[in-house]
């Protein structure tokens, strides 16, 4: 297993109290595999990724429990110095907003080249050549001429491709992409996702794709982890989850998106709002919004049940998953 997150807990200490952002997350990715982490804002999907990358702000954040095993080694036990060697070289991240993630006063070539200077000790000249190579690889036209240009001189899609180039620079084994196409137009989104998938295949990388877009997930993921209030509520291979969700939250999400191929009447809407992380409801966090909720849901926190019925393994954190799966 390339990466395994085990029972991860993250809290934020704020003026108003302790916000429990991640409450026991388990997931894993293999080389060449794509895991989509699906969730709405505040579900803890990005915080988990930041903990994996080791870029969580501590304080106010605090990892209170859990293990992050990367190639069998627990990253949480490493010194910051050792982690820095892994970050960038073995695992890299692509952020949502390329414009604010790139330094506006440093040329794109220097930003790409920095990777080689810092990690590989290359000279400025050699790293420049590497930068051009990378820009070619992510299909930026006239890379040689444009390597000295600044981020504002590129379009949104190109900037995101430069971010991908930067993440790929040292050929890492794991890429975490946090909403990589959310800020892009659909035609450009298709270009960027295609590029990411192709490079992943070529380098046999593990990819964690963090998103809220059920369409993008269906296009590229092998397996899915659905998060709600800092917990995984359902985990399954991509085909199973779309065919028959085993958690009422997943089911609600799938039913609430309008479809391109049909004109619906009224959309199904999950009632209520996502919970406040300072005061997560007792029992199942989804119970106040759940159509299946009954007394037990308000008191007992559901474990992640093994709901495997076919050869493919899947799990759901719902006491009444059978009802959801078959009803």
């Amino acid at each position, binding site marked *: 297993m390339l990466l395994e997150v085990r029972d991860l807990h993250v809290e934020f200490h704020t003026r108003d109290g302790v916000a429990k952002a991640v409450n026991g997350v388990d997931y894993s990715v293999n080389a060449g595999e794509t895991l989509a982490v699906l969730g709405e804002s505040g579900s803890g999907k990005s915080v988990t990724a930041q903990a994996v990358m080791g870029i969580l702000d501590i304080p106010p954040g605090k990892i209170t429990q859990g293990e992050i095993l990367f190639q069998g080694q627990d990253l949480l036990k490493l010194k910051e110095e050792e982690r820095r060697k892994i970050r960038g070289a073995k695992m890299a991240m692509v952020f949502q907003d390329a414009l604010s993630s790139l330094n506006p006063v440093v040329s794109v070539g220097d930003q790409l080249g920095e990777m080689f200077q810092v990690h590989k000790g290359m000279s400025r000249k050699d790293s420049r050549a590497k930068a051009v190579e990378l820009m070619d690889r992510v299909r930026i036209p006239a890379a040689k001429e444009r390597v000295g240009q600044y981020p504002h001189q590129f379009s949104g899609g190109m900037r995101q491709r430069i971010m991908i180039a930067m993440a790929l620079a040292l050929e890492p084994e794991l890429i975490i992409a946090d909403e990589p196409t959310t800020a892009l137009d659909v035609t450009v989104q298709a270009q960027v996702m295609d590029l990411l998938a192709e490079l992943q295949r070529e380098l046999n990388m593990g990819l964690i794709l963090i998103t809220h877009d059920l369409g993008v997930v269906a*296009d590229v993921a092998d397996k899915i982890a659905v998060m709600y209030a800092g917990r995984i509520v359902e985990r399954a291979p991509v085909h199973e989850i779309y065919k028959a969700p085993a958690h009422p939250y997943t089911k609600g999400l799938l039913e609430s998106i309008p479809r391109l191929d049909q004109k619906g009447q009224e959309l199904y809407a999950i009632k209520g709002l996502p919970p406040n992380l300072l005061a997560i409801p007792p029992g199942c966090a989804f119970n106040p919004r759940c159509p299946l909720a009954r007394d037990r849901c308000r008191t007992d926190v559901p474990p992640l049940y093994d709901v495997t019925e076919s050869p493919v393994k899947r799990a759901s954190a719902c006491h009444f998953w059978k009802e959801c799966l078959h009803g």
Partner: protein
Amino acid sequence: MADLNDEAVAAALDAPVGRGEPILQVRNLKKHFPLTQGILFKKQVGAVKAVDGVSFDLYQGETLGIVGESGCGKSTVAKLLMNLERATAGEVFYKGQDITKLSGRALKAVRRNIQMVFQDPYTSLNPRMTVGDIIGEPFDIHSEVAPKGDRRRKVQELLDVVGLNPEYINRYPHQFSGGQRQRIGIARGLALNPEIIICDEPVSALDVSVQAQVINLMGKLQDEFNLSYVFIAHDLSIVRHISDRVGVMYLGKMAEIGTDEQIYEHPTHPYTQALLSAVPVPDPEARAHRERIILTGDVPSPANPPSGCSFRTRCWKAQEKCSQEAPVLAIPERFKGQDTPAAHFSACHFAEEKNVVPAH
């Protein structure tokens, strides 16, 4: 600069049957932002053609969706319809009156009937005003709608209509979630009983589960108050869900316009086809047998659009003719007089039907 196109205008005027009078008629609307050089003596060196000749009709009680990518001019169209930006050329007729020529009191009177809901519920509400003041502010401007003593009750009624607790009247925007704030924005838009609401990306900042709530609310309000919507968005699935007719914009021009079925199931413009094929479909089974049209390159600058058809630089069908002659938004010659859903307005010399949305 493209000349006023008589055929396009005539075509757009061709009202679909059984809809009655259009409530809003937009004719060859243009907005060019000047590009200047020099500090003391500003000299105009060019223009960004944000909107460059757009025509359409809006009927009572219908929803017209406008889709397009960033920079295509859809939000500028929204501002022009409200006369928040002065049009460079063209007309917007509201019940026969050209609002682009109005100012002062006459404009104020018209704006009472055309209201707007904005994209970002976080920046479009004043953080220092209570919800009651925000929703009640339109009554200060149009005091004839609600006499002073009646306002509080009116505001509470509006809160109730959009599904918020009327007791929240004294709260501030930061005490609400994104979806609730968008409801406040909608309540403000409804305050003056308008006939038309222009919605500029009203749900794109919201989470999926909340988005559905707001879309359902908008549908309900439309039935209840017989509202007409101009619904501007980049999410094609949402636009299909809510719209009766859809217009597709590219680089300041309308590429194609028709009913939702005509556009989504029988698109004839290559840009519409590419756009639809690029939308990720939430169905992993469709992955294998999907034909995707991946466009190359980026959208050209509206300050320097290509000659002829503005889409030709990214189009796989482009030929000599496309660089010389700008296509007209009309029913394509080959479909004229035919009783087929492909016979709708499309601005392409080589319009051809192609279904790109996989059926389930």
